[in-house]
């Protein structure tokens, strides 16, 4: 697993936030690939390789999903539930990355087996620090299950 590029699927409707994530992950030395979709439906299409994501070479199976909650078309929690209920997708770690600190969202997310729940900090250094920690943790230290099939 080490040395192989880590595929990260970023589901984020706010372009600015997507840009923040991209900048942080670009700064990371490890070889990785960040794929960005802007709504829940697109995320599911990617995961199930539907429509424009039919081609596997352009849409590799992600090792990690960074998921916002309030998304157009299909809600983030819905995407999470669909993934965790599907045996083929349930092992992919899902990190919730959202501005919402609402208790309902937290509870729902963990009920649906989210692997982590992060609230975007309003403060710049904190946000950067979170991004770095997130990168180290998930990209350097975390062991992903072998996805042979």
């Amino acid at each position, binding site marked *: 697993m080490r040395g192989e590029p880590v595929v990260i699927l970023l589901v984020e409707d706010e372009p*600015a936030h997507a840009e923040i994530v991209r900048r942080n992950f670009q700064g990371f030395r490890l070889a990785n690939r960040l794929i960005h979709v802007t709504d829940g439906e697109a995320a599911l299409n990617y995961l199930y390789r539907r429509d424009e994501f039919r081609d596997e070479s352009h849409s590799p199976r992600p090792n990690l999903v960074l998921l916002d909650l309030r998304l*157009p078309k299909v809600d983030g929690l819905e995407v999470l539930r669909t993934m965790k209920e599907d045996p083929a997708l349930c092992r992919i770690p899902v990190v919730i990355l*959202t501005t919402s600190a609402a208790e309902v969202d937290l509870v729902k997310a963990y009920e649906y087996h989210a692997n982590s729940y992060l609230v*975007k900090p309003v403060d710049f250094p904190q946000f950067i620090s979170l991004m770095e920690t997130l990168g180290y943790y998930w990209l350097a230290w975390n062991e992903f299950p072998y996805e042979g099939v």
Partner: protein
Amino acid sequence: MAGADLEHSLVKPPGPPRQRLPLGLILIFAFLCAGIVSAGYLYYHGYETSHRQEVEKQLISVGDLKVAELAQWRKERLGDGGIFFRNTAFSTLVGRYYYQPTDLEAQRELESWLSKVLAYGQYDRAFLLDPQGIERLSLPLQPERIASVISQRTPEILETGAVAFQDFFRDDQDQRVYMAVLVPIFDLPDGGPPLGLLVLRIDPEQYLYPFINRWPTPSQTAETLLVRRDGSDVLYLNELRFQKDTALTLRYPLDRQELPAAKVVLGEKGIVDGTDYRGASVIADLQAIPNSPWFLVARIDAAEAFGPLVAQLWVMIFLVAALLFCSGAGVGFVWRQQNTRFYRERFQASEALRQSEASLQRAEAIGHLGHWRLNLANEQLSWSEEMYRLYGIRPEDFTFNYAVFTRLVHPEDRDDFDQTTLAIQKEGTALFAYRIVRADGEIRYVSGTGELERDPSGKVVGMFGTVQDVTGLQQKERELQEKNAELERFTYTISHDLKSPLVTVKTFLGYLKEDLAHSEEERVEQDMGYIHGAADKMTQLLDELLEMSRIGRVVNPPVRVELGELAQEALNMVAGRMAEKGVEVLVENPNVLLKGDRPRLVEIWQNLLENAVKFAGDQPSPRIEIGAQERGPETLFFVRDNGLGIDPRFQERVFNLFEKLDPRIEGTGLGLAMVKRIVELYGGKIWLESKGLGKGSCFWFTLPQAVLQAREGVSK
């Protein structure tokens, strides 16, 4: 409908009219009656006793008087005989007359003596008999034969040598009753051979009978009888007042004990009650006459003696009856007064009851709150009037029991309902909340309380409870819940959507600082672009939120306006963007007349038009149709486009606050939410029809409280 009657009967006067006399009055009446009757009786009894004593006294005094006089009379008669007894002169004369028939002087002298005795008036005839009882002289001079009774008795009298009485006898010559004084005549004053017997005959008709018959006071029936014993009979000696020819002929056996005459002969004395020879009831005084075989009976008919008593009795009875009637009337009057008061009070009570019943009904009608009562003994359920109104049922249509009642409950709530009923039985009280299906099929929400009813001994006899129609409340509650949900969604989205640009601004300010330090101009430009965009977005969000909050709060005066005008105004506001895309617009039925807050109404079409333009996509000939249609009683408005269309899966969500289907499209996700709120303000609803992506979409909505009238017609 027994149950309903039970409830309604409360307004009628309860029970049958009261007939019972109060015990106190009955007692008073009874005491009065007893007092009056016993006073009457005592008075009468006293009067009777004294009257009887009076009568007895009178009888006794008459009896005493007569007895004394009779005794005296007898004594006098014997005394008369004594004049001639052992009278030497008379004896000499009798001797001369007997033995010297020629001595006419002696005869004359003898006649002179005897004439003097007869002249005295007590004797009607004098006889002179020889010792053989042969008549020698008879005065007055008309010849008459001596009664054989006397002539036979002559030797006996001469033997005894004393003056004797011949009691009443019947003369065998003239068949009349006489009595006589018998005087033996002897030759010598101190004895010697008897010369003969002087008989002084008494006619009782002359003095004795009238004397006996005389009564000292006027009376219809009073009389005195003279009787003597004759063998085993009682013999009447005088002529009676009410029967003739009784002297020496009327006799009764002594065992006729009811006869006062028999009683006196047998030795009884004093006052007795009995029945006389006529069979009449009498009261009598019995006395024996001394030195004689005679007895005297002084009697008077009880009917006469007690006649005044009977009259007195009738007076008493009348008096007592009158007093009884008066006291009865008095008690009756008191009772009537009491009854009148009782009925008046009862009328007032029933009137008060009726009023309070009416108030209860009115209160129930106003509050839509009915009450019921379940009799556990017969499972009968009774309802108040409001209950029937609540259930939309007429009382005469149903006979209620628990089973029928349960059928009125909404099928889904029946189990709950049964559980609650059980809870009442177990806990004593419980709350109901269920739906009912009215007779007309309408479903209504009701809630209520039920509790057990116990009799004074604590035994459970039924249940009582209230039912209130809370459909209105339920609706309000649902609306409130919806509003709350919206508010929650609102705060949630605020916290998310407002925070989101803030995160952007802060983060890119951080980047900007770094990039300026590193003089990376390209990155600086990019950073500032993001910051700018986020700031713009926040401004727009805040503007629209403000606008949104004004809906339903800030209201312009309502005006009449046609659909065409509203559409035109909205079109003017989005004209720039429409011209950009070359959109063709068609307005149908522009004459539909509306009335309402004009700027607010314009916002509906404005937002829908903006939406349509936004999602026109790359349609080469975009077209938007605005119009209205009559469908049944409703006027449906529509805004139709031939743009991108909306996936049916998301059609519900488009009206949500801050809901955006495509993040790349400008806007905050407030536009359609705002339209929905305005539509709802006018009591309408909005929905979306779209066959899917690329097939265009059509927003339909109604504005019931704004539509005045709809007119046909198309204008371009």
